């Protein structure tokens, strides 16, 4: 992100006066999108919010206009560009990414990789002056060569898996956005790489994994994990929409914990598997669509993939309010509540 980094030195005040800003959000029905719309609805600086998704967000909207858009359809970029021009959108927040692994890999590719292409085309054709992209720490990949804390400049390696395009699509989206930033030095491009979100309501691969009574772990391996509370995720997103901060930023809660300590704190039973067996079993189960997590994910149970958040602290002045212990305690509370209900 060299070009984007160069621009990050510049001003960090909102580009326009109060009550003039219009924000468009793709993937508006998702958890991050809904939270952002709620926050923008209450903020007087924003006159209008344009929400793109397949379904309308399930709460009352006042200044939000909903447009039904399917990012996988050809020609959707022109349609979006028309809306962006008509509504005079100045900021596009691209959140239309899956937070769960899926077996529908070709559809996921169309949505994430091609969807980003459509979004960027629409932004090019309109007068959008800021683009915000949601990305995940998974993109760095869990590799034996990773430093204990990955900085933003580290290469995005992802996971090596033949049928697993979940992460490579996200990396491709980031690559496109980087290219967009280089081609359009006049536009602010922000990428937020977030740690896995975990809290009371989160629904993604990590919260699903930890919701199981037994959690598979790799025998003899115990990686350090990092999370993010959705309150902090929402706050970070709102922050980069409000202010101009070009560049890539790692967003994560403070602190790390080993996986086995987390299973202990949550009262879950770890199921230690030898690596060779786990890989084979996971391969078969993934092929048979019994499990929803591909075998390449096993690397994340083996090697560290933890981000350094110094840049966000220094440049965004963003400090996560919930640390990992509060997040795990909240998850423990959620499990306890589920147990009581059962």
């Amino acid at each position: 992100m060299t070009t984007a980094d160069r621009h990050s030195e510049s001003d960090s005040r909102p580009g326009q006066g109060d009550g003039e800003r219009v924000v468009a959000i793709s993937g508006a029905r998702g958890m991050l999108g809904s939270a952002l719309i709620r926050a923008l609805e209450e903020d007087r600086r924003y006159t209008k919010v344009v929400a793109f998704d397949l379904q309308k967000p399930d709460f009352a909207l006042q200044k939000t206009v909903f447009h039904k858009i399917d990012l996988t359809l050809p020609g959707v970029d022109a349609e979006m560009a028309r809306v962006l021009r008509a509504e005079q959108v100045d900021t596009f927040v691209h959140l239309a990414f899956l937070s769960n692994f899926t077996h529908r890999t070709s559809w996921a590719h169309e949505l994430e990789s091609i969807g980003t292409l459509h979004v960027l085309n629409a932004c090019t054709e309109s007068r959008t002056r800021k683009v915000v992209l949601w990305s995940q720490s998974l993109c760095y990949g869990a590799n034996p060569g990773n430093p204990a804390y990955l900085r933003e400049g580290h290469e995005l390696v992802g996971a090596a898996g033949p049928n697993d395009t979940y992460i490579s699509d996200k990396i491709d989206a980031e690559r496109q956005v980087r290219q967009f930033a280089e081609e359009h030095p006049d536009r602010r491009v922000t990428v937020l790489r977030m740690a896995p979100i975990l809290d009371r309501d989160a629904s993604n691969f990590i919260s699903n994994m930890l919701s199981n009574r037994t959690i598979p772990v790799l025998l003899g391996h115990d990686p350090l994990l990092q999370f993010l509370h959705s309150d902090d995720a929402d706050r970070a997103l709102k922050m980069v929409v409000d202010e101009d901060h070009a560049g890539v930023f790692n967003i994560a809660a403070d602190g790390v914990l080993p996986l086995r300590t987390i299973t202990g704190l949550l009262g879950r039973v770890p199921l230690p598997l030898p690596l060779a067996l786990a890989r084979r079993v996971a391969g078969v189960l993934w092929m048979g669509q019994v499990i929803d997590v591909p075998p390449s994910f096993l690397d994340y149970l083996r090697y560290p993939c933890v981000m350094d958040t110094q840049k966000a602290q220094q440049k965004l002045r963003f400090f996560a309010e919930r640390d990992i212990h509060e997040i795990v305690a909240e998850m423990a509370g959620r499990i306890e509540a589920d147990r009581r209900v059962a």
Partner: protein
Amino acid sequence: MEGRASRQGGNGRTKVDRRVPVGMITGHNRSRAQRSEAKRENWPGEGDRRTTERRYGPTIDPEEERRRPPGLGRELKEMERIMQERFVPRNEGGGLGARLKKLLTGGTLWEEIRRIQLRHRSEVVDEFGFDPKMADQMGPLLRFLYESYFRVELRGHANLPSSGRALLVANHSGTLPMDAAMLMMGMQREHEAHRMVRPLVEDFVYHAPVLGTIIRRMGGVRANFENAERLLERGRVAAVFPEGIQGIGKPFSQRYQLQRFGRGGFVKLALRTRSPIIPVAIVGAEEAYPLLFKFRGLARSTGVPFLPVTPTFPLLGPLGLVPLPSKWLILVGGPIYIHESFGARDWNNRVLVNKVAEQVRSTIQSMVDDTLAKRRSAFLG
């Protein structure tokens, strides 16, 4: 030879009488040393430490570190106590009926699973995964090895400053990296500030199943430039063994002959972070695991660089992993402030880096040689 150190009152700095000739590295006078001591106080990495560790983890304030000797372990324990208060379910009271109901609905089972899993783990680890509970539990074994088995003698430990960053550079030997553990143990026990040394661990050990996890939880950090930089910037003590695998894997016939010092990464590190290099000679570890041969072929499939053959391993099976009871001597030399002679920009001057690395290597080699000359027996000292 021991690098006698004399405390200088007031500012709490140590001045070192260096008897080891380090040639050009140490070619500076004292006033220059003091000037850059003053400069070191407001080095950028120091100032922003507060902001980066604002929310989580022990804030390592040099002042506070001086006041509270047990250091990191104690702070983590305090955090753990707070965590336990937050996590351990409060006793809700109630009579027999309530307790029976709780048991039947599986309420206690959940707590039991937690209790069993957290028996050997603390609920708080530091940023590199150091687990104070684990270190406590391994304590007796290490203490036995240190005191009774290897009868380690640590000399010149006052050369390690009581606070602030420092980079220990040591020779590596013995097939299992026991020398790092003994160095850690020694500094924790005998140094006046009980400083915790974080050894930088080779990849194939760090990522080895079981062993790697134990090493990480006992305080090991993966040997990586960024990790080491992070440690030093936070005012900690890192220990490097620049010989790496070559040092562990040299045959017994080449004992105490220091191998190539990697590519001088530790010199770059010291220049970049402006840390003093403290040479350390470890004598006795070679005899603990005398390496006769190494098998390469068999080892390739398992990921380890070689399979060692010692007089007892693999002849006696796992029993052969027990080291021989050699008498150890750990010698800590006087600090070398290379960043005073050279600027931080010099870190990518490869000729210079190589030269300095070679100087440090020969310093340690001469420390080892001197000790060997005085030693009468490998097992009796």
